[in-house]
């Protein structure tokens, strides 16, 4: 059996760690565990995992704090586990460099998908610059977006947005991250720009803009391009 990716699970609840270990080992992951922030940092330094699943509430320190300390010396992808949908902590965790998040309770299928996305982004950019989802094709090399084979006319801002999402396909991007990347640092609070432009993008790219399948809204957090 070939050695799969190494994953570090940080959670103070032993039941969560146990079911994650079982599910992940069944999917060919090598699993390390930590039950507090200190142990997490030590384990991360010792085993150099490929990806870390980090609970946002830990007994000894905040999950965000663990992330910050980790980011001082490692760029290992981190998936945060949060408790509630409206939790502001997870937005600050994402802004602080977390790669993704999941809200408890979550399904193993969902977690495995996020893990795959996170691991893929660690790999150097693929040579294929063409992103395909259903009948939509986005060719970054030729700056061409087509739907059902026909070219879709996008404004420069719309194109900048879709390009950013494609570059991070499958991964959640916070409002701040998108605004900062496309409009600039002084626009990070203008979330209504995003409402307008993503509305327009959906009109142009989605089959049913009322129930989008390609560009998904993450309530209170940001947007995600469905990657698979």
């Amino acid at each position, binding site marked *: 059996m070939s050695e799969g990716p190494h994953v570090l699970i940080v959670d103070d609840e032993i039941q969560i760690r146990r079911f994650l270990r079982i599910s992940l080992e069944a999917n060919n992951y090598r699993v390390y565990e930590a039950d507090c922030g200190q142990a997490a940092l030590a384990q991360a330094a010792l085993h150099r995992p490929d990806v870390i699943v980090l609970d946002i509430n830990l007994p000894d320190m905040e999950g965000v704090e663990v992330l910050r300390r980790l980011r001082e010396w490692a760029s290992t992808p981190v998936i945060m586990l949060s408790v509630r949908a*409206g939790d502001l902590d997870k937005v600050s965790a994402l802004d602080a460099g977390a790669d993704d998040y999941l809200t408890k309770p979550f399904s193993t299928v969902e977690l495995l998908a996020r893990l795959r996305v996170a691991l893929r982004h660690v790999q150097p950019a693929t040579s294929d610059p063409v992103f395909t989802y259903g009948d939509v094709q986005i060719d970054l090399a030729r700056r061409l977006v087509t739907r059902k084979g026909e070219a879709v006319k996008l404004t420069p801002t719309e194109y900048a947005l879709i390009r950013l999402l494609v570059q991070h396909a499958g991964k959640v991007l916070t409002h701040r991250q998108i605004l900062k990347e496309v409009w*600039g640092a002084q626009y990070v609070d203008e979330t209504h720009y995003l409402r307008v432009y993503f509305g327009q993008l959906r009109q142009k790219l989605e089959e049913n803009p009322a129930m989008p399948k390609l560009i998904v809204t993450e*309530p209170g957090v940001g947007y995600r391009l469905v990657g698979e």
Partner: protein
Amino acid sequence: MNDYRPDPDSLLAAIRRDEARQQRGRLKIFFGMAAGVGKTYAMLQAAQARRTEGSDAVVGWVETHGRAETEFLLAGLEQLPKQQLEYRGAVLEEMDLDAILARSPQLVLVDELAHTNAPGARHLKRYQDVLELLDAGIDVYTTVNVQHFESRVDAVRQITGITVHEKVPDSLLDLADEIELIDLPPDALRKRLAEGKVYTAERVEVAANNFFRTGNLTALREMALRLTAEHVDHKLQDYMQAKRIAGPWKSGDRLMVAVSPSPFSEEVIRWTRRMAYTLEAPWFAAFIETSAGLSEAQRELLAQNLELVRRLGGEVVTAAGEDIVEGVLRLAQQRNATQIVVGKPLQTRFEDWRRGGSLVDRLIRAGSDIDIYVVSGDKAKHRTPLRAPFSLPQFQSTWRDYAGAAIAIGCVTFSLLAAHSVWPWISYQAVGLIELLAVLLVAVYLGRGPALLAALLSAISWNFLFIQPRFTFAISALEDIILFLFYFIIALFAGTLTARLRTRERQAQYNADRTTALYTLAHETATAANMDDVLRTAVEQIGQVFAADVAILLTEQEKLSHTVHPASTLAVNDQEFGVASWVFDNNKPAGRFTATLPQAAAQFRPLSTPSRRVGVVGIRPQQTGRLTFDQEVLLETFTSQVALVIERELLDEAAQESVVLRESERLYTTLLNSISHELRTPLATVTGAASSLLDENTVLTDQSRSELIGEIQSAADRLNRLVENLLDMSRLDAGRLQLKLEWCDIGDVIGVALRTLRNVLGKRPVQVTVAPDTPLIMLDFVLMEQVLVNLLDNVGAYTPADSSLEIVVMVKKNWVRIDLADHGPGVPTDALARIFDKFYRVPGTLAGGTGLGLSICRGLVEAHGGTLTAHNRDGGGMVFSIRLPSSAAPPPVQEAIL
């Protein structure tokens, strides 16, 4: 007669005294006839004895007068530091009251009880310090000489010719738990004096020849012995009464002393107190307020006299009336007085005659079954000359008023003269009538004195300028003489009568104002909606009636709040807050014009009701003098009224809290019932399914396995939604819900909600129609999604699995409406109104559901300023309508600069 039974009131009072005494410190007075008998020595000896018993005894203030044997006794006793007070450049030492309170010993020694404190100390008198120490539960040993007792001051002056200024109220003797008389035969004292054991050598001779004469000392000794004997007698009687031992019960006497703004009242009051003490009868003072105003000096005197009554432990009763005799008798009857004490009258015979007999005569004649005591004042004591016979006390008019009267008459006369020279046909009789009118007007506006002056002046000028022969004082015709005389008499009478009417009218006006003020206060505070309104009204009313700045401090957790209530018009600095706290802690007024902390700029009074203290009111009147007696009484009525209203508000708040508490307890119970049911169903599913999966004996097909696992999954989802609901509910209830408002696309919110619930909705066809011109609106995306999820969840639970669902977003002026229409069974009309109530479940619906979901939805929508309603649609099914405000347009959107 029921002479064998203790009077219940006095029994109760004795029991109360006992109760209060248990918390109070014990007071022991070392009592002597004069300086040098060895009081301080005895006190220190007693303290040393207590110390060896293990008591924590400290010295607050002891004056050794350089006596070696006394100083020797100080050894081993902790001496507390003295307070340094700076007064006009000099540094004065005083006992440090706060240091003692902070040190809080078991026993403190305070020498010289009658001492007057230096300006800047908290209290005017040292005995007030002692009272505060006792209130704080500290035992006090103190010393005092007999001549300092308020009731003995007159006797001492008569015997020794010395006026004692440092006085202690007799009530301190009642308060004392123990009195130790330090007795020394006069000759022995004189011997000690000669030996230099009392005063230093140079003062000895002076003292020996004046105060320390054998005759004086003998009289003082008798006085001291008698006072002690009286005290012991009272203690015995108290004891007998409390133990229900039959004995000589107190007489049914009740003394009333008539108090007036006279310097003699002081002695009459003291006499009454002594008499009442001897008779063991209650006593009180009566003051009859007449329409005649009082001068500043008289007001001051009256305030002092009434203060004396209170200090001596008497009650002050006032009544208004024109006739003093009538008023006194009426009060005596109302209050069941058996004896009336009055001062010997000082009026002239003329006044007696004018009023139909002297006050005493009339009292004796009218008060048939009441004993009248007439006490003479000591005239020699009072240097102030009695009023000259013609001075009229009621005149409040100043020299300005007199000048005004003269000027008015001058003007009228001058213009009449001018008129007369132009129209010579105006007769001098007409002139006289016009002048009479001027006199009347002066009487109305300036009072009686100026009216009399005006009458005189106008009569003279009329005679001189108008009556033939003109420009002489002579009058030629006889009828003119009669006319002139009648003019003068009419002017005098009319002026006097008018002025009196005017005074009465003012008095009536004043009384009406006072009644109105009280009524307004009572009415306004009674109708005030809440505590803030009550206090605002109180501050306004007190401020208006007393022309004063007012501050109100309330309590906070049983302590006085440091910040004044925002309605206050008077700022309270730290120093004054100190005064206010003292007032609150001691439940006595303090500050300006009181005996405690008089250097404060404002006066503070406790706001207390019989059951508790609710705060302190501070007032700083704009007038410079002290408040008149009337004003004091009115202010007291005001403060007690305000205190009652504040207490009522506090009780109201407490009652409301308990209602809220009861309601929340009921909800809590309902919640528990509902939750335990709602938890148990999915838990039972999980447990059952999991045990089937684990059981080796149960043979399951692949399909039933995955069905069981699906059951576990959906039970877990249900539990998760329950937890979410509970959390939302508690956030809504606790008011901790903070909306994170941002510009949102309603269509996006709907899309996310549909995506979240795609499993619940299953195969139901959903049609979403969003009006193309729908603006972005300010929402909390997550919470609004929660609303839609809950509503959709309902659709999933209560409509057939293949029924369709329409979501329509419409744009109205200032509103965006979201309709969620299903094709389910709908809700019975009578249940429609209640479906948003907490824990309400439509009767006959399937098990499951807590009755929380819709209630949360409504709460969340209302938190956004919107409304959520439901109605049944005609063709079956029901519609939930969310209306959200969208008044403001979102800011413009910019293209990115790339």
